[in-house]
């Protein structure tokens, strides 16, 4: 596996993310299997931060959908593709930034819809983004310095 590091990122060799002061940083390979590791790690992070398991999983769902779009569309055919993920917890909010080194790709507009087919086929079309928008309070995409960056925020429900 080839791993490229973004400018300013120090290489970290670990299988799980490390989380200090309410922050979690991970570097992900361009592989759909990484989604399972992200959610496992987010569950641990949430437990360490006193976030309810349900709320941690809701945020994990958003990351699942967005990482899936990046791996399935933006970074397709890019063995050198790397995704970095940073998550922060503070003041009752979870924030995350997803960055990747692929070609310009806005996952907020890139998910194909399936206008044909039966009612269930149509329900599936664009569903990932619908789920993402249902959960998040903020979502932004920008392209700068050859990197795609998605930032997002979710207010935690009071326990």
């Amino acid at each position, binding site marked *: 596996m080839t791993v490229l590091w973004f400018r300013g990122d120090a290489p970290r060799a670990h299988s799980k993310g490390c989380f200090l002061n309410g922050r979690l940083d991970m570097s992900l390979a361009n592989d759909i299997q990484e989604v*399972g590791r992200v959610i496992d790690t987010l569950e641990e992070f949430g437990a360490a931060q006193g976030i309810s398991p349900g709320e941690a*999983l809701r945020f994990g769902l958003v990351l699942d959908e967005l990482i*899936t779009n990046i791996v399935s569309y933006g970074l397709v055919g890019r063995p050198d593709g790397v995704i970095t993920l940073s998550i922060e917890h503070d003041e009752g909010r979870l924030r995350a930034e997803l960055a990747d080194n692929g070609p310009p790709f806005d996952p907020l507009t890139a998910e194909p819809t399936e206008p044909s087919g039966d*009612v269930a086929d149509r329900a599936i079309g664009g569903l990932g983004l619908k*789920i993402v928008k*249902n959960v998040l309070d903020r979502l932004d995409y920008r392209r700068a310095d050859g990197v795609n960056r998605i930032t997002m925020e979710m207010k935690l429900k009071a326990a």
Partner: protein
Amino acid sequence: MANLPHETLGNALVLKPSRRIDSSNAKAFEDDASALVDAGPKLVVVDASDLDYISSAGLRVILTTAKKAKAAGGGLTIACARNNVKEVLAVSGFDNIFGLHASVEAAIASLGK
């Protein structure tokens, strides 16, 4: 044999996925469910009691399983969804499309109609 927890109740196949159906394991669910539908009953209930999480990739494989069951003369419905799973089923409209039942027994009865 499939790793997906399941049982046969009367003339129905009850699939009982646990923890999560996410992008990384949706394919495994699809393969297991497909083999079970080929080999067993075509009336399928997805019992979501033990499921904490489902993504759009998970709904996609529920849909392919439903199509397979329907093509074989059966059908698929969902029972006992909780919390996040219930929310995703509502956002997608899958709760109305496939039906969401409070018990496995009610789900099986709805398929028999």
